[in-house]
Each structure stands twice: as C-alpha cells, then as structure tokens.
C-alpha cells in the first residue's frame, strides 16, 4: 500500500508551507515535496506607485528582513536615478548602506545560530521541540551565557540598523541615489567604545567564540554534520570584483558541484539573460534555474553555504582565517553538506562584525556628501546578499515616474529546489519502512529545512503562521494518520 505523508506547515519558518512524502507499497519514499500554498502578489501591488517610494514600500513584505528589501530596492532605484549600479554613490552613502546591511546580517545570523541552530545541536535534533529553544539554553548552567550573547548580539545589530535606517519600522535611510543621513561622531563612538558589552570588539570576540563552539560540537558529531542532508548542487552568489566575499555589492557568479564556474562574474543588470523561473502546479513558489543548463540541471543553492563556495577569499583577517579552515575541510572543493551551512553562517557573522568595525572606524561614515545622481534610466536591478541568500529586485518605471513592472526573486525562492531535495533525502533516511510518523522524523525534516532558514513571508508574501501538521496517506490518497504540533 503506497502512502503519502504530509507535514504542514513547517514549524519555525514563516508563511504557510507543507511537506508531503509519498511512500510506495513497500514503504519506500518515492517522492517528497515542499509545497507553498499561499501567495500574495506584491509585484502587482507596487505597480503605479512612484519609484522613490519603493525602498520603503517593499518593507511591507515582511518584518523579518526589511533592511534587505529596503537596500535592494534602493540599489535598483540608484540605477533609475542615474547614480550607477553600485559604485556611483558617494563614499559616505555606500558605507552607511554597507553598515546598515552588515548590521542586518549580523543580527539575523546571530538569531539563527543562537536561538535555532545551537539548541538543535546542543540538545540534539531528536530532543522534544519544546526543549530545542533559547529558553532551554538560558535555563541550563552550561549554556546560559550563550543565550545572553545571542540576545546582546541581536541588540547590537538592531541598534546599528536603527542608527543607519533612521526608524525601527519602515526605515527610510536609503533613498534613490544615496542615504538621508550619516552617523554622528557620538553614534559612531557609542558603537566602538560604548558600554560593555555593546561594542564592536565584543561582537567580534563573541562571533569567534561561536565558531569555536560549533567546531567543538563538530568534532564530537562529525558524521552527523558531514552526512545529514548532503547532496551536490550548483551554487550562486554575488562576489566582489576581485572574487572576495561581498554581501552588499558585486557580480553574479555560479559554480557547479565540482567548483567550475558556470556563471562567470556577470553584471547582474543582465540577470534575465542567465536565470529563468519555472512554475510547477503544486507550489506557488517558483523554481529558478540557470537557463544555459536548463530546468533539470540548472537549479542552484544560495545562502551562506553557496557564498563560501563561490567566493575566492574573505577580505577581513579573522573571518579569512576561519574560512581557510572551513575550505580545508573539503579540500577546497565546494561544500555540499547541508549542516555546514551553520558553520558558514557563523563565519559570515564574524565577517559582518569585522566589517562593522572597519566601517565605524572609517571617517567617511560621518561624512556629509550623501547623494549622487545622473541621467535617469527607465529600468534598474538591485541585488545584494540577504541573510538567506541572493535577493533580486527589478523595476521598470514609466515617463510619469510610476513603477510599471516589478520582479522580486527572494533567497527562499532560489533555494526552492535544494530545500525539496533536502527534504527528500531526509525522508528517505527517516521514513523508509516506517508505518507511523515519528517525532524524530518530523524533527529531522524540520532541521533539514531550517538549515536554509526559509522565509516564506518573503517568498509568498504571506503573514506568518507556524503550526505543524503531519498527515499520512496511502496509495489511494486516503488519510491514515495526521499529527498537529
């Protein structure tokens, strides 16, 4: 009797998604899918609005990474106002935006590691879900300090965002062609030399300690982290002009599973020549792919794992050292180990902390030249590396300065196929031969998806809801069992 398991929606991620796992008569997994079942057309909503509103309007998408949408839209509008494609801003404007962005990366990555990944790792992925959270960390003598660090790292990143974006909700710091404020010397000094622990140096030190924590765990659980949900793929991200890791601006690079460049540092203004989006009937979330390789072979991963695969080096000393260790683990080859995403994310956390310090020590950050301009253009694309991966914003405006076309590809959409593959691999491992839905199986599916930290609010523009539903169907689609968590 063939069976079908449904997990709907996935806990700890936003929006409404469900996982279905199909079993054959022998209890073997024959197919699994991550379905996205809600969609709200943001692109249509923004049509007709004046282009200068876009950097603020796009923050309505969700409250999880509004800064990333704010900056990606602003970058696209830089092109439209003739301020260039990323290198035409004033030094102060670019550095303020970078500081805002690295503040966002830092606090988002810290949240993911300290409040999601570390409980999974420290208490075990088989532990009950109510034990795998930051309160459990805070209650334990051994890990209490980790919870405190996580809270403070979030706080530091949020304060950086508040200082650069101007407002806590619907920030308006980035505007087409520049920014509307720089830091005051007092603000800068507070981040560099303010009261402990909210200082840049402390953030760097804690980020280093987090990597040490991960490596300690990795040493004890090498097999789990090396083999859990591992599969080859292509990888895509921005890289700096010199091949450096750069999360704010650069050129698009993709490599295959062997490390060969399959998208060679192209100008992202031309992304439509290289990337297509496939629609499948069972999901509202599209499936992007590299057109030259086609739908079957052209899908790719984005996010921390992909970024550390595509870049050649990291331009800050401590993160570079960590990167060399990380790269050595796979002998310089692309890393396809899903759970190593946590490692990569921590290296990026350290990189972000180092970048924030460098930027805060730069005199330009308090400068007065905020705006650039030029000849107006009808169309612009803005890209950056958001916490979860590459974020595309593409707009076209008419003669009345109204947006007439918008296309957003968010990181969770890029990772659609990889998440599906991750679920399938875990399902094959956990479900084969099982007659019931076990808690460890549900946890394993969650952990596999969470490594990508999907944001279904962004991907589908839904308001977040988080119950977990698991349903089991037979070959004739009859419900056998359903669990709701």
């Amino acid at each position, binding site marked *: 009797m063939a069976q079908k398991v449904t997990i709907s929606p996935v806990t700890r991620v936003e929006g409404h998604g469900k996982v279905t796992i199909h079993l054959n008569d022998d209890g073997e997994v024959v197919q699994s899918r991550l379905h996205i079942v809600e969609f709200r057309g943001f692109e249509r909503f923004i049509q007709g609005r004046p282009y200068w509103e876009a950097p603020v309007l796009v923050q309505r998408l969700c409250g*999880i990474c509004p800064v990333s949408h704010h900056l990606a839209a602003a970058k696209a509008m830089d092109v439209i106002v003739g301020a260039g494609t990323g290198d035409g801003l004033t030094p102060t404007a670019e550095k303020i935006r970078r500081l805002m962005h690295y503040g966002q990366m830092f606090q988002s990555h810290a949240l993911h590691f300290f409040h999601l990944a570390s409980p999974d790792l420290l208490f075990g992925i088989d532990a009950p879900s109510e034990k795998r959270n930051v309160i459990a960390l805070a209650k334990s003598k051994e890990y209490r300090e980790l919870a405190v660090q996580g809270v403070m790292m979030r706080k530091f990143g949020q304060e950086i965002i508040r200082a650069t974006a101007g407002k806590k909700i619907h920030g308006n710091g980035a505007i087409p062609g520049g920014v509307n404020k720089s830091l005051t010397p007092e603000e800068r000094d507070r981040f560099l030399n303010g009261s402990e622990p909210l200082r840049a140096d402390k953030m760097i030190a804690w980020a280093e300690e987090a990597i040490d924590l991960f490596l300690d765990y990795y040493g004890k659980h090498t097999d789990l982290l090396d083999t859990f949900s591992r599969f080859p793929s292509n990888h895509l991200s921005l890289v700096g002009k010199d091949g450096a890791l750069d999360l704010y601006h650069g050129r698009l690079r993709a490599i295959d599973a062997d490390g060969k460049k399959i998208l060679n540092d192209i100008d992202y203004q031309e992304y439509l020549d290289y990337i297509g989006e496939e629609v499948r009937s069972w999901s509202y979330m599209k499936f992007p792919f590299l057109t030259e390789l086609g739908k079957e072979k052209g899908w790719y991963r984005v996010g921390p794992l992909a970024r550390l695969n595509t870049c050649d080096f990291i331009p800050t000393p401590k993160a570079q050292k960590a990167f060399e260790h990380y790269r050595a683990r796979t002998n310089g080859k692309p890393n396809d180990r899903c759970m190593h995403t946590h490692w990569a994310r921590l290296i990026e956390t350290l990189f972000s902390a180092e970048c924030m310090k460098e930027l805060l020590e730069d005199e330009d950050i308090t400068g007065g030249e905020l705006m650039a301009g030029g000849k107006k253009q009808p169309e612009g694309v803005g890209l950056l590396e958001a916490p979860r991966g590459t974020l595309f914003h593409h707009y076209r405006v008419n003669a009345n300065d109204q947006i007439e076309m918008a296309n957003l590809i968010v990181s969770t959409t890029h990772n659609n196929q990889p998440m599906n593959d991750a679920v399938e691999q875990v399902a094959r491992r956990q479900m084969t031969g099982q007659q019931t839905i076990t808690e460890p199986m549900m946890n394993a599916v969650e952990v596999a998806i969470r490594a990508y930290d999907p944001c279904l609010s962004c991907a589908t523009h839904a308001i977040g809801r988080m119950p977990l539903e698991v349903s089991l169907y037979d070959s004739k689609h009859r419900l056998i069992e359903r669990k709701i968590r």
Partner: protein
Amino acid sequence: MQHIWAPMAEEKRILIYGYGNPGRQDDGLGKALADVAEAWIGEQRLGNVKVDVAFQLQVEDVLKMADMDLVLFVDASMDERIGDFSIERVTSDPEASFSAHSVPPGFIVGLYEALYGAPPPSYLIQIRGYEWELEESVTLQARHNMELAWGLVKKIILDPDILETQPQTAESDKNGSKQ
C-alpha cells in the same frame, strides 16, 4: 519612541509595546495604539511610561522589560472570538511555538524569567483586525476596536493597580466584552 520626562518616585514604570506590520492593514493595530499612546503621554508629560514599537517580538525584547513594573504588549488578532479587544495576563510559555523570526509574548516572559528572574507583570492586549492586505492604514472597524482598547490602556496608565484590584477587568475583556 521614548520621552524625556523623569518618572515621579513610586510611580510604576510601564512599557507599552505595540507590534505588527503597519504595511499590512490591521496588522498595524499594535503600532496604531502605540502612536496614540505616545502622543497622549507626551501631552500629559508622564515620565513613567515608555512606548515602543516593532515589526514583531524578538528575543532581545527581554532587555526592554528590565526595570519595568508593568508591561503591556499590544498586538492585532485574527481571532474571531475576540469581539473588539481582549486583555489577558501573559505567563511564561517556554513551550510556545518558536519561529526563526518572531516569538509570542509568553516566550519573551519565559526567556526573561530564565535569564533574569521574576518578570514584571505582563499583559497582552489583542485588538481584533479584519483585513491583512498590503495597504498602509487600518480599517475603520479595527480603528474603532483600537480606540476601545486605548480607553482601557489609558485607565491602566492612570491606575496600574486596576489590574490587581479589578482582575475582572482583564477577565471580562478576555472574551471580547467591552469595558
């Protein structure tokens, strides 16, 4: 959203924390109430009340609870059982569903308790909303509900002990009945 007037001695320090996405119509009810509260508190020059807003609650919000005697979380609700608004005591809820990207008030209270000890009394005010599309303003009916909720919040600001001396206030509103 803070103001500069110093609290009087022995006044209870109150945090009003509205959260939600004001770009999603009635999801902005928490911020809408916070805005009204901010303006009124400024006029009244009440130094013991802080007002803050956020897209959503997150773990670092435990820091905002420090030094407070009372915390009022204010959120929008889709729950049809809520007539106009409800108020209920928030207790530690370590088993609350935990998202990568937001947490419920009970989780914040639980985290505070785990990190710093007994949390200040905390209440969740939920205001019934109706529309959640990508628009900026709250609906008329939702605004009416918000104003009713603000009426209660104002009473609490003026007499925080009302929550202890008249616990039925909170209980009666739990199911949506009006003040």
